[in-house]
């Protein structure tokens, strides 16, 4: 008797936790601009054998595809039929609606788990392009839906999707005239499932995901000076890895996750250092009497790009770690370039570029030397690439405050991450692909 009650209580909690996650989004990702000809697609509501599933899987998939700016999902209310198996599809129904592709699926709940089956079908050739049966559970249904959206995205666009990823960011609430509350949070890329990692009355900056997504490094002023902490996401355990005199900031993980590049000024000047986490040894990388900050590793781990004002105005430089050669990267007109970030394939570099209209996000093609300014706010900063290299998340400050936005690398797709809570949101960092 007791065991039964325990199980049903657990089940209830399980579902309610999942339900809470489903209803509470930190952001609403709103598409401001999509490509000129988004691909039509019909994601038919999945047939669930249990009506109490906490997530509408097809709706999450549609939402992901629509927000990418590259798809135009069909509203379910316009669907004449709702096939769930391949042999239930009447292809004429869909050809008549000029739907080139459709997605059908099922959610089979049993014994606490839930298997999700889906098929992506080419309507004109009547052939299945891809299909899977994925092991899941009510608590993981949103994640599974994002994974399916990723598979569909890759199948039709030839590029990996980044829907099943997370972002980190800092929120600031004003409590009183002289009192603010800062929070470091992570959430799904669509704004759902926000989790607070750190709460502090002092500023928090520069969150940085470890390459395997298990830890986050950040700068906290809780000790009344800047200090770098590394925190394990699942356990919440953390330690200060750089807390000496002066500045300790701008942490950046090496691609193998064993080292952190950072800015320290303990020796009298802000310079780039590399900390080996295993033995806690610091290695100094720059020695110029200028400000050297914002280090970031190239994807192959062989170079460090950073911001330096050694030439007067701040520009972006790159140091080859093998031969110690330093070369300047940015030569565009306007003379103020900071905050470099390599694209995941290393071919592009995002940065903050200042011109007469303010600070914007620019993308430099490293091979051709071509610059493309992709945002047009007054103060756009903190660019961070999605792990598939297609979108850049950043913060934008207007008269209403600071909020997050995202733009595709070619500038064609624009999103706003509207925060309903009314807090300032800043310092976004896009997390890696999730296993």
């Amino acid at each position, binding site marked *: 008797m007791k065991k039964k009650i325990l199980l049903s209580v657990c089940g209830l909690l399980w579902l309610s936790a999942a339900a809470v996650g489903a209803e509470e989004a930190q952001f609403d990702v709103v598409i401001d601009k999509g490509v000129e000809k988004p691909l039509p697609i019909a994601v038919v509501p999945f047939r669930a054998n249990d009506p109490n599933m906490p997530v509408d899987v097809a709706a999450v998939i549609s939402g992901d595809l629509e927000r990418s700016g590259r798809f135009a999902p069909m509203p379910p209310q316009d669907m004449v039929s709702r096939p769930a198996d391949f042999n239930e599809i009447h292809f004429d129904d869909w050809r008549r609606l000029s739907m080139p592709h459709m997605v059908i699926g099922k959610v089979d709940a049993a014994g606490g788990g839930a298997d999700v089956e889906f098929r992506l079908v080419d309507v004109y050739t009547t052939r299945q392009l891809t299909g899977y049966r994925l092991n899941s559970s009510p608590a993981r249904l949103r994640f599974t839906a994002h994974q399916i959206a990723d598979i569909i995205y890759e199948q039709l666009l030839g590029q990996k999707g980044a829907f099943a990823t997370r972002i980190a960011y800092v929120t600031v609430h004003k409590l009183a005239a002289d009192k603010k509350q800062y929070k470091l949070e992570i959430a799904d890329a669509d704004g759902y499932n926000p989790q607070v990692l750190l709460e502090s009355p002092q*500023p928090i900056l520069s969150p940085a995901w470890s390459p395997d997504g298990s830890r986050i490094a950040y700068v906290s002023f809780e000790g009344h000076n800047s200090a770098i902490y590394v925190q394990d996401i699942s356990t919440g355990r953390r330690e200060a890895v750089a807390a000496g005199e*002066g500045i300790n900031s701008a942490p950046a993980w090496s691609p193998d996750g064993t080292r952190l590049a950072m*800015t320290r000024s303990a020796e009298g000047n802000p310079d780039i250092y590399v900390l080996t986490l295993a033995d806690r040894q610091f290695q100094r990388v720059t020695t110029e009497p200028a400000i050297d*900050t914002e280090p970031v590793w190239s994807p192959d781990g062989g170079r460090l790009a950073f*911001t330096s004002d050694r030439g007067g105005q701040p520009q972006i430089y790159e140091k080859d770690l093998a031969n110690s050669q330093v070369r300047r990267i940015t030569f565009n007109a306007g003379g103020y370039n900071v905050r470099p970030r390599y694209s995941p394939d290393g071919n592009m570099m995002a940065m903050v570029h200042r011109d007469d209209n303010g600070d914007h996000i620019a993308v430099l093609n490293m091979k051709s030397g071509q610059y493309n300014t992709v945002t047009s706010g007054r*103060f756009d900063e903190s660019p961070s690439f999605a792990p598939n290299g297609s979108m850049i998340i950043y913060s934008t400050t207007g008269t209403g405050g600071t909020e997050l936005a995202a733009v595709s690398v070619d500038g064609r797709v624009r999103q706003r991450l509207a925060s309903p809570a009314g807090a300032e949101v800043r310092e976004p960092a896009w997390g890696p692909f999730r296993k």
Partner: protein
Amino acid sequence: MLKPMISLVLMFITLFVLAACSSESTKEGNAAVVDKTGLSDEEKNAKAHAVPGSGDLQGNALEGASNPLSRTVVYFDYDSSDVHADDRPVVEAHAAKLAGNHDLIVTLEGHADERGSREYNLALGERRAQAVKKQMVLLGVAADQIRTVSYGEERPADPGHDEAAYSKNRRVEIIYAK
């Protein structure tokens, strides 16, 4: 000659007044409150408490508004770590105070306006704090009396987004340890 005479006269007048007062009922606000009830303190449930003198004033005299020591913030031009010429006397005044007393410790808090990246502004704030420290050391302050901290753009004095606000945020604050 005149002075002792006046004192004597005043003394007699006081005694006269006191004598006159004592025959009347209790008077508030005068130097003496005289009780004619004939009851003891305990019977009246009155409790007289000694009130010790407050002694000397604790704390420091406030500097007049025109004294540079009353100002504890110095300002900077855009992208610059040179203290405004107008603010040099403020640095000099605090330096003189610190140089005169090695027990005094200050924290110089460096700040920047919001333009530019947060990390670069952290370094800019520190550059400003270090510039003021250097000036003070040149003026005779021991380096171990001065601590520097940078908050970059994180603690604006004015949350506005225009040049008027920015000019108030590009600053170094001089904060004495308690």
